[in-house]
């Protein structure tokens, strides 16, 4: 599963996106799971550079209450 996803191209590099807006909820939620945790790079297919930018944007978004630090799990 990890080997298959390793061949994926980073969607940000594909579209030449350099700035990730931390105020945009849709992009930030795409890279967090149901509990609000950041999804690792081996699953999303991001390159290292954009994964770092995403993590910084998610952390800023958490401070501004755009996304939650942690959400309750349904167990």
């Amino acid at each position: 599963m990890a080997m298959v996803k390793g061949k994926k191209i980073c969607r940000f590099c594909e579209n030449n996106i350099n700035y990730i807006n931390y105020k945009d909820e849709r992009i930030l939620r795409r890279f967090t799971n149901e509990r609000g945790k950041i999804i690792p790079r081996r699953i999303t297919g991001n390159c290292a550079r954009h994964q770092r930018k995403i993590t910084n944007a998610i952390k800023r978004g958490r401070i501004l209450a755009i996304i939650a630090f942690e959400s309750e799990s349904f167990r």
Partner: protein
Amino acid sequence: MRTYETTFIINPQTDDVTIERHIGDVADVITKNNGKIVHEDKMGTRRLAYPIQGLTQGYYASFIFEAPSEVLPLLDRHYKLNEMYIRNLTVRFDGKLEEIIQQENPFVKPSVNKVVPAEKAVKVETKIETEKEEKTSHSHENTEEPTKETPVVEPLPEENQEKTEDTKENIEEKRESQETSETNYDEEDQL
């Protein structure tokens, strides 16, 4: 002179006049100290992801500005003294303004926006050819409104609307969520 970005949240349980006054006060702090506001974004009242000071909603606004570094402690002081500013964040701005103006409609495929007005324009043209001159004036007015509305996609739509739009993105999200749920189960079993 460096570019910075401040975002702040205002208590929404007041009049619109006081909210705009507080936004103007922040702009004054920047402009009175040799600053120049480059971009302004009022996102409006939004639901907070977690309660802050017992509130569940907040009015978001942000500025991108160029100013010397002496402005920053003045801004922090201004936020600290007034209780209406629930939260704030000042950050050095690394991106480009052109990307932001494009990203006001993020991950909305341009083909989607182009298809809808084109179809309506085609339909309108066929109607104009068939209808009389009196009806063409009304049809022009009716066509202009939807074409202006459809390309303007709100950057922060409601959750209900997100489920209906962008079906491909939903499929990708489901895949990712399924994968993450599987990984979570594996980690929890190991723990």
